[in-house]
């Protein structure tokens, strides 16, 4: 009787056509990206300029690093609204530490520490406090911004240590450091998600938490790690942001980063409710957003209408993707 099964299930589709349809199903964001890229090239000749391309990469690197973490959080079935505020807080505290110590290392380390600690708290609230991640991180969003404002008295703080700005303003061959850091992080998170147990458990947890728990996975611990991870990535982003402008604003830095990061993740094909999605998708989601912002400036879209155009294109890009 086994032969029935064999006939049914061994014929693995591996033709060129099915390959293509697989690519389409899994990575339709890449196709959306290519269309937007070609469209942009045709609409504005300056778009293809190598400097412009490098600019776009530079511009997306901060949101990109955050979006990597957001992908992991969203794969686990959660969301993190606090990223922008935590970025501001980590930036403010790290600049103070930098100025107080005079050591760049201390500054960088402080940013990472603040970021991961805030993430850890988010994780605790979600995992142990059983608070919906939306509300837990909404609380953190309000709280972290508030503390940043309090420390910096509503204003911004500037670095006073030479060399700190070099972190974000140097380049290797043609690539700026932030771009390199972004790509490095992308590779690390990719490996983490696809080659290690951690990633496997995150997918499992996001897809079916009960089943994950019954498989003896320490679900709570996983969640705490997930939020700590995004917190740390936000810390990295904070270092870049602070170093790039040698200052950070407690009131406006990081404003609405959460929305951009989430949009990038969803455009990249990750499912809102978790369990399904890809780091590579997010990478292209981030690039699509970057191109949109860039084109809006190149095409001189009226400022009042930019929101409209951006919203529209995001929705088209998402509709265009094959949904289950």
């Amino acid at each position, binding site marked *: *009787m*086994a032969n*029935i*099964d*064999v006939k*049914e*299930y*061994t014929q*693995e589709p591996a033709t060129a056509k099915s390959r293509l349809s697989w690519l389409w199903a899994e990575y339709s964001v890449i196709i959306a990206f290519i269309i937007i890229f070609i469209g942009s090239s045709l609409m504005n000749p300056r778009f293809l300029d190598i400097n412009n391309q490098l600019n776009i990469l530079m511009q997306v690197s901060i949101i990109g690093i955050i979006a990597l973490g957001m992908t992991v959080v969203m794969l686990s079935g959660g969301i993190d609204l606090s990223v922008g505020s935590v970025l501001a807080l980590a930036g403010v505290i790290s600049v103070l530490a930098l100025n107080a110590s005079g050591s760049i290392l201390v500054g960088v380390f402080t940013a990472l520490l603040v970021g991961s600690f805030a993430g850890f708290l988010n994780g605790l609230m979600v995992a142990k406090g059983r608070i919906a991640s939306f509300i837990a991180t909404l609380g953190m969003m309000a709280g972290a911004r508030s503390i940043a404002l309090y420390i910096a008295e509503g204003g911004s703080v500037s670095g006073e240590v030479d060399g700190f700005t070099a972190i974000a303003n140097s380049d290797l061959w043609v690539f700026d450091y932030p771009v390199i850091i972004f790509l490095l992080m992308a590779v690390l998170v990719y*490996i983490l998600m696809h*080659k*290690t*147990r951690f990633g*496997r*458990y995150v*997918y*499992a947890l*996001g*897809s*079916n938490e*009960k*089943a*994950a*728990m*019954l*498989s*003896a*996975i*320490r679900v709570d611990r996983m969640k705490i790690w997930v939020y700590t991870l995004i917190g740390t990535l936000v810390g990295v982003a904070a270092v870049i942001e602070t170093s790039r402008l040698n200052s950070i604003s407690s009131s406006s830095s990081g404003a609405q980063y959460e929305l951009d990061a989430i949009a990038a993740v969803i455009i990249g094909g990750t499912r809102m409710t978790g*369990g*399904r999605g890809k780091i590579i998708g997010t990478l292209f989601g981030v690039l699509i957003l970057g191109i949109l912002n860039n084109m809006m400036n190149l095409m001189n879209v009226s400022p009042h209408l930019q929101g409209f155009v951006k919203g529209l294109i995001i929705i088209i890009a998402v509709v265009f993707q094959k949904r289950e």
Partner: protein
Amino acid sequence: MTPQPFVAMKNIEKSFNGVPVLKSVTLEVEEGEIHALLGENGAGKSTLMNILGGVHQPDNGTILINGEEAKMADPRVSQEHGISFIHQELNMVSDLKVYENMFLGSELRNKFGFLAVEEMCRQTHEILAELGVNINPKEYVRNLATSYKQLIEISKALLHKSRLIIMDEPTTSLAEHEVNRLFELMKNLKKTGVSIIYISHKLKEIQAVCDRYTVLRDGQLVKTGMVENEDLETITKMMVGKAISQERFMHEHPFGETAMEVSGLTSTGHFKDIDFTVRKGEIVGFTGLAGDGRTELFESLFGFRKKYAGEVKINGQVVKIDHPRKALQAGIGYVPKDRKENAIIKDLSVIHNMSLSSMGNFERSGFIQDKKEREKFDVYKKALNIKVHNPRITIDKLSGGNQQKVIIAKWLEAETDILIFDNPTQGIDVGAKQEIYQQIIALSRLGKAIIILSSEAPEVLRICHTINVMYHGEITARFTGEGASEEEIMHYATGSKREGIAIG
């Protein structure tokens, strides 16, 4: 009996929200035995196992493993004691691949700490082959039929090299040959000293593989004994309090006109060239193996799937059904299989689940009459013997069998002329099964056209007037209820016999 059983659960008590579910239950399982845990729906079998598996904590009582007290604080602890649990409801991570599910929580890694994907695939392939399944280990579980999911759950438990495997109704969605393979495997495991607790409502299975049995009734221990010393009737009687006949129902009555006529229905990849008719008062069965396209066919007829070609006539009128609502309006009701995913709304109360598809029956000038709902539910509660202490609790608090009865009540309430039952007695105890069959027959006497889908040949043989056998999306044979035998059905269902439709 050795003085010290491998697992002993002593005087276990458990109540949910003040309602006692287990009353001082004791269960002992020896090393290397297959122990049947029996009882009607809601008797407390799963709850008892959930306590052993660390899913629930007992209010009272102790668990001894090899004579030493063990506290099953969570599923991890239980697993560390060598206990694997195949749950009644599937617990697959549908977004992961087959091998990823198999090794979830116990991944193999290479020396760098990275996942050893190929090795896991190889082992997955091996262990599935033992069960006679040949699936690509890298296939996503969400793309698989339920029976394969079930087999994967079983394989996962096997993978753990456990000392005790709890199987809570593992065969509800398996075809017969798959069940036989499973039994062979269980017997082999037994030889290597592994114990198995086996829960099933199919008493034939109990006789086939189990050594001892324990019967629960309403949370109380009724009896423990050797299976070979009892016959089916006695066990049934212990479970439900009366003898149940396994005979074919005699129910001859004249049929009315054609209620549903289907011709040339085709959907690529699922089914092709389906023709059949159902008359009023007729009970038509569809059987076959998993993956024969039965469910897809009727999901299409019910409007859940839209991509198909062919013609459907209801009461002589050609209809185009592209949404379940239209099916309902056309007079078709559908009790789906896999109730957890397809049927129950776990956040709605038992009553509200019952009334969901027929809200019109309970409305007056647009407002829902609570009292009417409640009264109607009480009618079904009595008719179908639904066990629920308070029908306002959410339906997920009911035992599996009782959930199924509520879903049947829901479609009875919709009062459609045509009723499709997909695997209607999945997980239902022998007593309740009988009640459901009687309900179905009563409906057919009232002139309703009934369609029953089941992978269990005996089920369709017991109550259907006409039986269609499907294989690879085609109807390969058609019998009258009396004219068919289990053996012959199997021939057509496995494709080993294929000829012009045998109309009896």
